[in-house]
């Protein structure tokens, strides 16, 4: 369906959605974008690691331990951003039944869980020498742990049903309910007395962190966002391939001459990936 001539307001959004609803178009676009995303990500992370380990200065209070920040903070940004992506894709899947939206949400969730795990472990390794403890049940740490379990819950839920549509819908609802956790994570350091320090980059009034530390941080974050795009495209393409193979297999089984008179099968399988 085309939405030409109705590009005002909701028409534009619908037109954009229907543009990318076509898996064939997505497969072409993602095939072209994938090498660029992968190359950018690898280069940015390589430069980021060199900057973080060799160029960035030691902190006047934390010494060399501050270098954990260049892993921990970008991983935390990705943990939140990817969750927002999963929730947005879930909303599109629920409201418009967009065929790629659910594939996108399912593909992104394990990536978000991985970044959240990196954030938690690097934070723990940073907390031990700086705070004197691996873990503390304060608002920031606990809400990020909840985020990790939301990711795991989503992944378990979408795979728990024999009917993938039902699993997808249940997972989408969970992903949307879990959005409540995002502002709690972001503002936990302002609302409650936490051991965790407040924001020093993404804050009103601009960053308070020194430029010599901000630049490596942003380069590393760019690399992590590039890695997310790379893995997202790769995993979405995998899912489209698998759906298409499944549809072809079912069609092939149905089209093969039936051996018995009761061998007829429903051939109206939606052919994903076309």
């Amino acid at each position: 369906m085309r939405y030409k001539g109705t590009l005002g307001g909701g028409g534009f959004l619908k037109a954009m959605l229907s543009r990318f609803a076509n898996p064939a178009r997505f497969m072409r676009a993602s095939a072209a974008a994938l090498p660029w995303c992968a190359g950018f990500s690898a280069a940015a992370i390589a430069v980021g690691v060199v900057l973080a380990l060799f160029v960035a200065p030691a902190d006047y209070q934390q010494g060399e331990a501050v270098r954990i920040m260049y892993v921990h903070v970008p991983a935390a940004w990705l943990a939140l951003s990817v969750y927002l992506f999963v929730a947005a894709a879930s909303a599109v899947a629920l409201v418009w039944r967009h065929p790629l939206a659910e594939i996108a949400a399912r593909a992104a969730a394990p990536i978000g869980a991985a970044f959240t795990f990196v954030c938690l472990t690097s934070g723990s390794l940073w907390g031990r020498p700086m705070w004197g403890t691996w873990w503390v049940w304060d608002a920031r740490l606990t809400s990020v742990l909840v985020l990790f379990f939301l990711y795991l819950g989503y992944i378990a839920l979408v795979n728990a049903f024999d009917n993938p549509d039902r699993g997808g819908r249940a997972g989408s609802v969970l992903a949307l309910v879990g959005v409540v956790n995002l502002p709690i994570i972001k503002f936990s350091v302002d609302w409650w007395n936490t051991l965790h320090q407040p924001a020093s980059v993404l804050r009103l009034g601009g960053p308070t962190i020194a430029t010599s530390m901000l630049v490596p941080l942003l380069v590393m974050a760019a690399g992590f966002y590039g890695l997310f795009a790379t893995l997202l495209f790769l995993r979405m393409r995998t899912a489209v391939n698998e759906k298409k193979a499944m549809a072809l297999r079912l069609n092939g089984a149905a089209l093969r001459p039936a051996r018995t008179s009761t061998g007829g099968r429903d051939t109206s399988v939606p052919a994903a990936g076309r």
Partner: protein
Amino acid sequence: MSTLTAFLAMGGYAAFVWPAYGVAAAVLGGLTAHSWRRYRASRRALTAIEQ
């Protein structure tokens, strides 16, 4: 040589800095390798059916 030793020592925080980078490399590298292997398997399976 002593500069390398000093670098690896991370001002006494080696036991925390290197595992943090190691976990990140292992988790993100592992996910990338896994995703890539599954992608190649999906492409192989599809071409096997399509002909």
